[in-house]
C-alpha cells in the first residue's frame, strides 16, 4: 500500500537556533489513527502544522497524495489544504457567525466568493452539514451563534467543519486540551467514531497517554524534535512512556490521573456511551 502522507527529513528552525523539528521521517497509511505524544515543547504542534503548511518547514519533503506540499504556494496550496481537515485546541470558530455557517466554512474553498457571500452553498453540502450536526448531538443549536456554545459543543462544530471538507487526512492539534474531562471524553469519542465511519486518516496530538492508548492504531512519541517511539499501543510500555517524558515526569503523572477514564466503562456501557453523550448539549 502506498502511503497517503510521506514525510522526509522534516526540519523546522524558528529564528536562528530554536530547532523545533530535528529531521523527522514518517510514512502514514490510509485509515490509520495516529496519536502523537510527547512532552511540552517537543515539537508536536510544529510537526502537525508543517503538514498543511500553517508553519513553513525549513527543510524536508512533505508528499501528500502524490503532491509535494513543501513548495506549493497560492491557489495550488489552497487546493491541497482543502483536502486536509484540521481541528484546533481553541476550536477557532468564527464566534459571531452561526453554527451551520461555521460548518459550511469547510466548503469555502470549493465555492466562488460571490456564491459564498450570498450563502449559495450546494444543497448536498447543507444537507451533510445538518446530518453531521445531528450526529454530534447539536441539532438544536444549528442557528445559534458559535460563541454562545460551550467548549465541548464548539469543538464538535469544529469537527463537523473539518469533516465537511471531505478531506483525506484529518489533523488535530490537542483537540481536547481545553475541555473538562467529560466533554473531552465525548469529543474524543465522536472524533474517533466519525473518522472511522468516513475511513479518514487521522493525526492527533494529545497530551493524555491513556486516550492515545485507547484510540490510536499507531502511536508516535516525539521528544526534542525527533521521533523516539513509533509503534502500536501495546508496544508503548510504562518504561517507554517514562523515557518519552523523561525529565518532565510531572506532565506524565498528571496525564494518568484524568478521572473520567473511558477505559473504566464496561464494553456494554461503552457502546451506549456515544449516543448518550451526544444528547448532552448543555454540559
Amino acid at each position, binding site marked *: 500500500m502506498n502511503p497517503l502522507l510521506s514525510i522526509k527529513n522534516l526540519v523546522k528552525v524558528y529564528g536562528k537556533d530554536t530547532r523545533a523539528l530535528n529531521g523527522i521521517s514518517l510514512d502514514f497509511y490510509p485509515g490509520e489513527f495516529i496519536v502523537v505524544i510527547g512532552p511540552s515543547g517537543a515539537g508536536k504542534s510544529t510537526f502537525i502544522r508543517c503538514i498543511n503548511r500553517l508553519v513553513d518547514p525549513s527543510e524536508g519533503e512533505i508528499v501528500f497524495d502524490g503532491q509535494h506540499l513543501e513548495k506549493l504556494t497560492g491557489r495550488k496550496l489552497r487546493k491541497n489544504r482543502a483536502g486536509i481537515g484540521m481541528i484546533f485546541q481553541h476550536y477557532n470558530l468564527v464566534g459571531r457567525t452561526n453554527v451551520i455557517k461555521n460548518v459550511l466554512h469547510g466548503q469555502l*474553498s470549493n465555492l466562488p466568493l460571490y456564491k459564498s457571500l450570498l450563502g449559495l452553498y450546494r444543497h448536498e453540502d447543507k444537507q451533510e452539514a445538518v446530518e453531521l450536526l445531528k450526529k454530534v448531538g447539536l441539532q438544536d443549536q444549528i442557528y445559534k451563534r458559535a460563541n454562545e456554545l460551550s467548549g465541548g459543543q464548539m469543538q464538535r462544530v469544529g469537527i463537523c467543519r473539518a469533516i465537511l471538507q471531505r478531506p483525506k487526512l484529518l489533523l488535530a492539534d490537542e483537540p481536547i486540551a481545553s475541555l473538562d474531562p467529560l466533554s473531552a471524553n465525548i469529543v474524543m469519542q465522536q472524533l474517533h467514531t466519525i473518522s472511522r465511519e468516513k475511513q479518514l486518516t487521522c493525526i492527533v496530538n494529545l497530551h493524555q497517554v491513556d486516550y492515545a492508548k485507547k484510540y490510536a492504531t499507531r502511536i508516535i512519541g516525539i521528544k526534542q524534535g525527533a521521533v523516539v517511539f513509533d509503534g502500536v499501543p501495546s508496544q508503548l510500555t510504562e518504561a517507554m512512556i517514562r523515557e518519552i517524558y523523561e525529565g518532565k515526569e510531572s506532565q506524565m503523572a498528571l496525564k494518568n490521573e484524568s478521572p473520567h477514564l473511558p477505559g473504566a466503562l464496561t464494553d456494554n456501557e461503552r457502546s451506549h456511551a456515544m449516543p448518550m453523550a451526544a444528547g448532552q448539549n448543555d454540559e
Partner: protein
Amino acid sequence: MNNKAINYKIPIDQREIKRPLFIMLSIFALLSFSVYYLEISFIEMMMGLPNFVMFFFQKFFPPNAENLQHYIPAVIDTLGYAVISTYISTIIAFILGILISENTNKFKTLQVVTRGFVSILRNIPFIIWGALLVYIFGIGGIVGVFALILVTVGFLSKSYAESIDEISGDKLEALRANGSSYLQILFHGVIPEFIPAWINWTLFAFEINVRASVVLGLVGAGGIGVLIDTNINLFKYGEAITIIAVVVIIILLTELVTNSIRKRFV
C-alpha cells in the same frame, strides 16, 4: 532571621518619594513659565469675569426665537454633512484599515505607507483642513463635507485597523487551513468579527462629525455654524443664542440616537 524581619518596616512602594516630587515640581515650573511668558494675569481675568457675565446676560438675553423656522434648512444641512461625510469615510476607512492591519495585509511596505498617509490626515486638525479648502474651493457646503471626510478617514482607518488587529489570528487560521481564499477569509472571518467594533467607531465618528460640522460653519464651510457667525457679526446676539441652543439640542439628540442604536446592535 524571620523573627528579626517583623521589626523591619515593609515598604509597599519600591520607588522613592523623590520622583513624584520632581515630576510635580517640573509641571509647576512649566505652568509658571507659560503664565509669565504669555503675560497672563490671573487678577485681570478675575476682574474681567463680572464684565463678561454682564455682557453675556445683557446682550444675549432674552433669546430671540422669532426666526426659529428659518434655521431648519441650516440644521438639516449640518446633519446632512455629518451623514454624508461619515458614510463616505466609513467605506474609504474600511479599505485603508484593512491595508493597515497586520491581520489582513502581509505587505509591510504597503502597511507603512498607508499608515503614514492616514496619520497625516488625522494629525491636521479639521479646522485647518476647512480653512485650507475654503481657500482653494471658496465658501460652500462641499468644502465642509470634504474637510470632514479627510479627518474622519484618518480617525476611522486607525481605529478600524486596531479593531481588526484585535481579532485573534486563531479564528482566521482555521479558514486559512481549509483552503479559503484571501477574500473569503476577509468576508467570512474578519468582517463578522469586526461588526460590533465597526458600529461603535462609526457612530462615534458620526457624533464627532455633527459637532465638527457646526464648527466648520464658522470658517464659512456651510451649515448652521455660518448662521452663528453672521448673527454675532451683525450684533444680533439674541438670535445667536437661540441658534446655539438649537446646536446643543441637535448634539444631545444625536447622542441619544447613537446610544440607542449602540444598545440595540452591539
